């Protein structure tokens, strides 16, 4: 006979404000099998948990039902509480009377009725709960970091520092990400390269870190502790192990007209090139679409050009390099795929496509950067002259209305600050250049942020105009007419500008969505990775063993990215130090006596956890019958339950969510 204890939580007034907790406790106390029922202000508090422990012991409870917040919140808390009192943790069920009851309705009578129904369902489920024991699987003590920007670099260094091997998969030819492209960083104005390139070198020198550049994750299987990942290594047509990065090949390459992606196409590179001086790995790469030799090969001629091959003393040029797929095992994965600025092609009103002098903020960053196309001199892309008037436009693609087809609803968070930085740097280097900033709001929460913005206004005389730009029109004299509204003076203004800089909204990288599908992690509506809990688990994804770092989770600045990356690394380390991992015991469980060996369950299993064995059964008259029956590898089973429905003979069931339990819940709520 089951002896169930029911504990109803008030959650302060969160539940008790809408649900009559006394009545819930009283009604549930009358249900068959319930021997004790009570209510308390905060069940999750230490006093509340102590109370549960005491009653498990004193009342010899065989099951515990909590009527409280979502099981996604505190199921684990209460299960370990039960375990401390000697009760199997899987004999605890939680009825969600907060998130799905008291918080979604105002009528007390209805809320109480619903809470009782959910409580009854939880009791019915608990009665049918079988004690479960978690098995163990070994842990692969190695981490994968996807993305080699400042987020990935930080996480990889932290994990490597703890003594675990780490692989960084970077789709570009060099690590460093967006930060390597930046000139200065707000609010301290220290040079981005000076702080990120030593980190990049550290990564390349750390014996625990392997950098897989020009690579992408193309298949994911396995689970926490034992992920198996296929990594596609794109050809760079240069042998990474031989190239010394001397640059002799680049000097000899005759094709100078290849758009330089590192400088966002603002200038050209050679067909063979190294992204930038401090690139890691410092290895050349050939752009196959522009290389004369490779174009020749495609047309059946093998004698075209080939100067780089002749120039390379190390013999590193490999025109026949092929795409390669390597398979590796990892215990934990950190996703750090970063962001991209929104494509400005859609924003016709700002004339981005019509004038080279309308640039994005990231392009402006390259124009200010000493390693950029203008060697750090701020020059107009159109005629190479110094601009005398620059207009900065904020929120391009950010903070749009919900029905906007062009932009996003969210704030990109960093634009106000980097625009203030751009304006300060411009005014500092070119004091006779006027800077105007059109803004909706100036948002500067952060250490020394508002002081920085005020310096732009008060010390550097940057003109801030509250209002939005309606139209940018290129003029015949090469200037740009910027038409906007000044909401404070309540009038339309026209500014004759030499350059317009658009603060393009931050977007999740395009690779994020397909990656999330492979990793079976969740995303939010804006294709940012979803964290396991918005407040309490901000660096974990809802999928166990996968952690999040940087802008792939939402727009953020460099210090926040670094902080989150270290957090994600710490979480990964907590995992990697374990020798064994406890499995979720809620796995599929076939009844051998009912199984007819048809194979339906194995067909639908996404994890290949089901196999068949020939087993001897006792037949009539002391005979032995050998039957083909299904067998579940509980270490591989994730407990989705697809097989339970596919089974035509009803032999397959799921521990923790058995057919009987769900039916009992259905009966109880109706």
């Amino acid at each position: 006979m089951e002896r169930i204890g029911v504990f109803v939580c008030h959650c302060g007034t969160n539940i008790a404000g809408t649900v009559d907790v006394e009545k819930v406790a009283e009604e549930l106390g009358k249900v068959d099998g319930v021997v004790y029922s009570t209510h308390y202000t905060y069940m999750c508090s230490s006093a509340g948990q102590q109370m549960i422990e005491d009653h498990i012991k004193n009342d010899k409870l065989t099951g515990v039902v909590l009527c409280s917040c979502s099981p996604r919140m505190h199921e684990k808390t209460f299960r370990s509480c039960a375990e401390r009192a000697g009760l199997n943790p899987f004999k605890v069920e939680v009825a969600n009377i907060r998130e799905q009851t008291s918080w979604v309705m105002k009528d007390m009578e209805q809320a109480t009725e619903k809470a009782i129904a959910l409580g009854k369902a939880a009791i019915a489920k608990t009665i049918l709960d079988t004690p479960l024991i978690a098995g163990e699987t070994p842990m692969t003590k190695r981490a994968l970091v996807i993305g080699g920007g400042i987020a990935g670099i930080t996480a990889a260094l932290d994990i490597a520092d703890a003594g675990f091997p780490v692989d960084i998969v970077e789709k570009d030819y060099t690590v460093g990400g967006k930060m390597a492209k930046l000139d200065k960083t707000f609010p301290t104005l220290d040079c981005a390269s000076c702080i990120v390139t030593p980190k990049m070198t550290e990564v390349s020198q750390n014996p625990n870190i392997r950098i897989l550049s020009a690579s992408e994750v193309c298949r994911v299987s396995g689970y926490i502790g034992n992920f198996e990942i296929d990594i596609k290594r794109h050809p760079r047509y240069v042998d990474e192990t031989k190239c010394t990065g001397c640059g002799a090949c680049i000097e000899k390459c005759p094709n100078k007209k290849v758009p330089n992606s590192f400088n966002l196409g603002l200038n050209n590179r050679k067909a063979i090139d190294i992204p930038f001086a401090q690139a890691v790995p410092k290895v050349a790469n050939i752009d196959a679409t522009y290389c004369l030799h490779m174009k020749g090969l495609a047309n059946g001629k093998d004698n075209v050009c080939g100067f780089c091959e002749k120039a390379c003393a190390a013999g590193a040029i490999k025109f026949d390099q092929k795409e390669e797929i390597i398979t590796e095992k990892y215990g934990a994965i950190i996703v750090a795929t970063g962001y991209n600025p929104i494509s400005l092609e859609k924003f016709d009103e700002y004339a981005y496509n019509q004038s080279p002098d309308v640039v994005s903020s990231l392009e402006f960053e390259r124009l200010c950067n000493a390693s950029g196309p203008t060697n750090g001199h701020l020059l107009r892309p159109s005629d190479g002259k110094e601009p005398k008037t620059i207009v900065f436009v904020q929120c391009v693609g950010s903070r749009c209305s919900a029905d906007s087809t062009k932009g996003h609803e969210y704030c990109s968070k960093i634009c106000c600050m980097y625009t203030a930085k751009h304006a300060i740097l411009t005014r500092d280097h070119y004091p006779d250049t006027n800077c105007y900033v059109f803004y909706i709001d100036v948002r500067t929460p952060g250490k020394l942020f508002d002081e920085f913005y005020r310096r732009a206004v008060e010390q550097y005389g940057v003109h801030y105009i509250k209002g939005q730009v309606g139209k940018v029109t290129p003029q015949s004299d090469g200037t740009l007419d910027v038409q906007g509204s000044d909401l404070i003076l309540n009038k339309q203004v026209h500014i004759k500008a030499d350059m317009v800089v658009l603060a393009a909204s931050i977007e999740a990288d395009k690779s994020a969505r397909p990656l999330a599908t492979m990793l079976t992690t969740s995303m939010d509506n804006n294709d940012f990775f979803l964290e396991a809990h918005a407040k309490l688990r901000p660096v974990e994804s809802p999928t166990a063993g996968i952690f999040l770092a940087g802008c792939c989770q939402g727009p953020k600045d460099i210090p926040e990215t670094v902080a989150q990356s270290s957090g994600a690394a710490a979480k990964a380390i907590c995992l990697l130090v374990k020798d064994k991992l406890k499995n979720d015991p809620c796995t599929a469980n076939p009844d051998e006596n009912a199984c007819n060996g048809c194979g339906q369950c194995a067909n639908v299993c996404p994890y290949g956890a089901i196999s068949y064995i020939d087993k001897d059964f006792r037949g009539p008259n002391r005979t032995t019958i050998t039957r083909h029956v299904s067998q579940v590898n509980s270490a591989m089973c994730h407990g989705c339950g697809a097989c339970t429905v596919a089974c035509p003979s009803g032999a397959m069931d799921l521990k923790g969510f058995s057919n009987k339990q769900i039916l009992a819940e259905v009966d109880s709520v109706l």
Partner: protein
Amino acid sequence: MIMSENKNWTPKIVAFCCNWCSYAGADLAGNNRLEYPGNVKIIRIPCSCRLNPLFILRAFQRGADGVILCGCHPGDCHYSTGNYFARRRMTLLFSMLDFLGIEKGRTRVEWCSAAEGVRFAGIMNDFVKQITELGECKKLEDVRCKTN
């Protein structure tokens, strides 16, 4: 369809929600204090593919007026393919139920992610409205199951 004789009738609705997306979406609806009627009773299942057609039949047998299954968006299933199985199974089941006299409007499959609290509350409000319009469902109800 049998119209309700009971003036105090309110629909009884069972919502099966997958643990990873929809149940979390339902929690988010609560976190954001988005209202939907109390007659929606949510049952947590690990994945939409765990939903055995029997559970739906049992719900109607026990007097449910509508049953809704919520899972992750196609392509986003925590178990990769679970919601595809659910989608196919439910398509077959719902056409069979329609044949038995449980109108198509009483059964529904919706995809709702963990980030879509607003969508979850919207779906539930809409579904309750729809079931209220359809009225009481007694086609499969088994009176022997009545406990009181």
